[in-house]
């Protein structure tokens, strides 16, 4: 059984970090994982996406996935609100601070979170992606909070180590923002 999540946004939103965090958290909790990354040359503002696949056994999915069963869209500039490769009945999370949920029509299950605004509110403006990841993992059960925090902390390079605490709060805030209604929608 394999599950995939495509994460898209623009450079600077931390897409690569949340991808690595998810894949590492899954690995540390004993699952198989794969992370394929694709990003442009620009340091900020260019396209950034990462796809994580998590499973019980050695990953069979291709490093360039023809389809994905879930997606997190932090910015729709390069992917549109509904990424092309998302399964028609897949699970989509939108960063409604930037992406208009009205643009996300379709049969997929949709959960929106104003991640960028929420991150500012908790004084973690750079951690919107992690906030979203916290929510995503709470909704899907793909990785638990403790493993996410441990993975994120170990992934920070020395010059960003001071952000570990803020990032941790963001992960928690995202999980806390998940409503009973959202949980019900996803479990269907």
């Amino acid at each position, binding site marked *: 059984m394999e599950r995939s999540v495509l994460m898209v946004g623009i450079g600077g939103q931390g897409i690569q970090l949340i991808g690595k965090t998810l894949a590492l958290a899954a690995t540390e909790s004993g699952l198989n994982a794969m992370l*394929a990354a694709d990003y442009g040359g620009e340091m900020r503002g260019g396209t950034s996406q990462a796809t994580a696949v998590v499973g019980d056994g050695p990953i069979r999915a291709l490093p360039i996935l023809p389809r994905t069963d879930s997606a997190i869209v932090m910015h729709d500039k390069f992917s549109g609100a509904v990424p092309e490769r998302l399964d028609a009945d897949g699970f989509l999370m939108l960063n409604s601070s930037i992406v208009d949920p009205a643009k996300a029509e379709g049969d997929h299950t949709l959960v929106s979170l104003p991640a960028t605004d929420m991150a500012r509110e908790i004084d973690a403006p750079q951690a919107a992606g992690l906030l979203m990841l916290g929510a995503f993992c709470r909704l899907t059960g793909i990785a638990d909070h403790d493993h996410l925090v441990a993975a994120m902390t170990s992934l920070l390079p020395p010059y960003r180590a001071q952000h570990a605490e803020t990032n941790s709060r963001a992960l928690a805030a995202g999980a806390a923002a998940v409503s009973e209604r959202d949980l019900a929608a996803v479990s269907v």
Partner: protein
Amino acid sequence: MSAVAQPAKLELLEGTTAIARAAILSDCRFFTGYPMSPFTGLLESMSDLMPKSGGSCVNVESEIEGVNMTLGAAATGARAATGSCGQGVALMQEAIAEASLNETPIVIFNMARNQQDYFQCTRGGGWGDYRTLTLAPKDVPEAVEHTQLLFHLADKYRVPTILYGDPLIAQTRVGVRLQPLDLPALPPKDWALDGSLGGTGRSRQIWTWALGKRNAPGPGPDRHWQELAEKFESMAASEQRWEAQHVDDAETVVVAFGSAGKFTEYVVDELREEGHQIGHFRPITLWPFPGEALAEATRGARRVLVFELNAGQMIEDVRQFADDRKAIRAIGGISSADSGLSFGPLLDAPEIRGRIIAALKEEA
């Protein structure tokens, strides 16, 4: 090697890091490299990890310098390696031929930018009648196994060996277990230079001309190079590797190597499930090319679809061996990202599927 009680734990590693760890697991103690995408990660990992395991890693000033350092290290009996992408390996051709012809085992990691170096690693641009054994993994876990195998085979045959990697293998992160392969023991390297036989009348010599010394003449270039040619033939007979699925009743066989092989295998599996009589053949050794196995796998097939991301390189070997040459179609092509550093849009399951379906619809 004792039986392993517990499997190694799963670690999420970027491909180049996994390969570096696998090399160190194989007791590689010397590495050289010059930064070049997508090989750079391997050099960086080795710079970090090699000294910690008691070895030496040099960020060299040219690929030529690097491969020659590696030759020197290997001449003393150490397991030594170098690497680059195809452009850098191009600079190393003389030294690779030299290693093949003076029987110095080295491992070369071509973290290629695409599939366009097939000729380079099978025909080579060096000089003379030399061969290099080349393995093309389809993904990171296979690359980890191949790395260990390459050090083993290099020592076993005293020959340079090549890993054909690519950007996907280099940059994808995968959960891998760094499990040591259970490989047979090899004889000690009594040919290696350590200075100890100086002045004894039995001192050693490493030389492509193999003329030996006045008191112990060698075979000389004529016999030495003939003996090497025989060695390569025997390697070719015994070291071919490949994978085949669903070929027994296949009307169509898709042939691909490396990462492309992982994609084509995925699509062929899908098409099989949909009822197509389609099979898959993936050469794992690019040299020696598994020709007889390919012939066997394509026996009776009406179509042999060769998918490679270049202008047609492996297809020449397919033409040599496929059971029916008229059944061969090229369904790949050059496909590069705008950066020139990675694959283009053709390496994608829907694209590949489209091309296979189109070929199935053609009259056989």
